[in-house]
């Protein structure tokens, strides 16, 4: 049975999601941050983690964005193949939601129209939208506004099959070490392994939208997530990069089949807020 979704509903929801993501911490990140305050060994590190918590309280109570970099809006639209859209084009509806959310929600407009000419679009559009078609008659929207302090520290490594799992682990540690204080640690590390050049980057981005307390269902990947989190937290970078035992709150790894000649690895780093909001229409 075909189900009709009005695209004006998409606009309304994206608008609300932009404002929600930038003012409130998601449940999983809140839990991860609370645990970190308990376990942090460095006194300055602990102080910074407490300030980050205080920051979240102020943000939610006084409606001040958690971070001034309210990001470029990344949207995953998973469209059930029995959905029929009515109204303006889906892409326009999503961008209109971003426009309304960022202008009416007092969020920063951080998007420039052209990467070289750099004129601000003044409404934070366009969003970066990833569509996929799934089964069913629902539309699942995931909004993940991405700040560029951490985005700039993200990396892609085109490894050789001979590099194996050790090569992948080294790549992850290298990316986090090089990011150091720049990516606003404690960070969340999204990793994509496999696919092609662009597919592994997308896997890494999607990994960031997975809950921080949820592991991969593949046994060896789950083990690698745990091992990497342990090792990253022994690098010494700590909260704010000012030394400590909390450098990452979670490592989420997604994998995909790849070519016999390749082993692509993407490491997408996100700050402790790791904004992501999901709604199903």
């Amino acid at each position, binding site marked *: 049975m075909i189900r009709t979704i009005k695209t004006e509903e998409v606009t309304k929801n994206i608008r609300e999601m932009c404002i929600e993501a930038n003012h409130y911490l998601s449940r999983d990140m809140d839990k991860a941050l609370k645990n970190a305050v308990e376990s942090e*060994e*460095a006194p*300055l*590190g602990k102080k*910074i983690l407490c*300030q*980050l918590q*205080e*920051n*979240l309280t*102020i*943000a939610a109570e*006084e*409606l*001040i*964005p*958690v*971070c*001034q*970099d*309210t990001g470029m809006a990344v949207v995953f639209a998973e469209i059930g193949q029995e959905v029929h859209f009515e109204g303006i084009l889906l892409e326009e509806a999503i961008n209109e939601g971003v426009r309304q959310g960022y202008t009416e929600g*007092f*969020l*920063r*407009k*951080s998007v420039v129209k052209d990467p070289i000419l*750099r004129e*601000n679009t*003044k409404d934070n559009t366009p969003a970066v939208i990833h569509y996929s078609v799934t089964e069913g008659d629902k539309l699942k929207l995931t909004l993940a506004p991405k700040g560029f*302090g951490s985005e*700039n520290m993200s990396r892609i490594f085109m490894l050789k099959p001979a590099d194996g799992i050790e090569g992948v682990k080294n790549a992850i540690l290298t990316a986090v070490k090089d990011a*150091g*204080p*720049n990516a*606003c640690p404690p960070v969340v590390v999204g990793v994509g392994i496999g696919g092609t050049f662009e597919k592994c980057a997308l896997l890494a981005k999607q990994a960031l939208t997975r809950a921080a307390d949820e592991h991969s269902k593949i046994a060896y990947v789950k083990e690698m997530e745990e091992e990497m989190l342990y*090792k990253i937290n*022994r*690098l*010494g*970078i*700590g909260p*704010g*990069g*000012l*030394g*400590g*035992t909390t450098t990452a709150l979670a490592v989420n790894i997604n994998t995909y089949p790849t070519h016999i000649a390749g082993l692509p690895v993407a490491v997408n780093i996100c*700050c*402790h*807020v790791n904004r992501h909001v999901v709604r199903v229409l």
Partner: protein
Amino acid sequence: MDKHIVTPITAEVTKDLRAGDYVYISGTVYVARDAAHKRFMEALDKAEECSIEKGQEEVERKQAGALPFPVENAVIYYMGPSPAREGRPIGSAGPTTASRMDKYAPRLLDLGLKAMIGKGKRTQSVMDAIIRNQAVYFAAVGGAGALLSKCIKKSDLVCYDDLGAEAVLKLEVEDFPAVVVIDCQGNNLYETAVRKYAKEV
């Protein structure tokens, strides 16, 4: 050690600041980031062209005058705020990554800039300019924009309004918390603190 400092910051003050000191800054702080720095450089280039035949001293005098804020003993905060809600001086206002301004910072430090507030690593050339000019680099907590905005009591536009979130602002801050990362002796907290907490893997 916790210290309270008031701007403008002189070499008398910076000489006693050490990497790792926790400071509370009060007074005037200027806000500028990528696009504004690019314009600062264009203004300096123009002033240099106009006065180069009159000697180095005249060039420096003209250049300091070409900047839209008094650079001598000034503090620049690398930041681009979110819009202010009604009745508030500013929106969320945490530090941005300082390394993007590394290309421009030595030139401003040589003209008298005394302190920078940002987050993240600096290059060797910035480190050298900090030592050479008895300046200081502070880190504010990245991602604490709502908390830090509470320390900002007043915000006025200085120039480059067309740059939106990247316009130059003059802030009045009160007990703005920051950590000394690079001091005028070249100590770097990012290196020493990380070494202290790094463990075998």
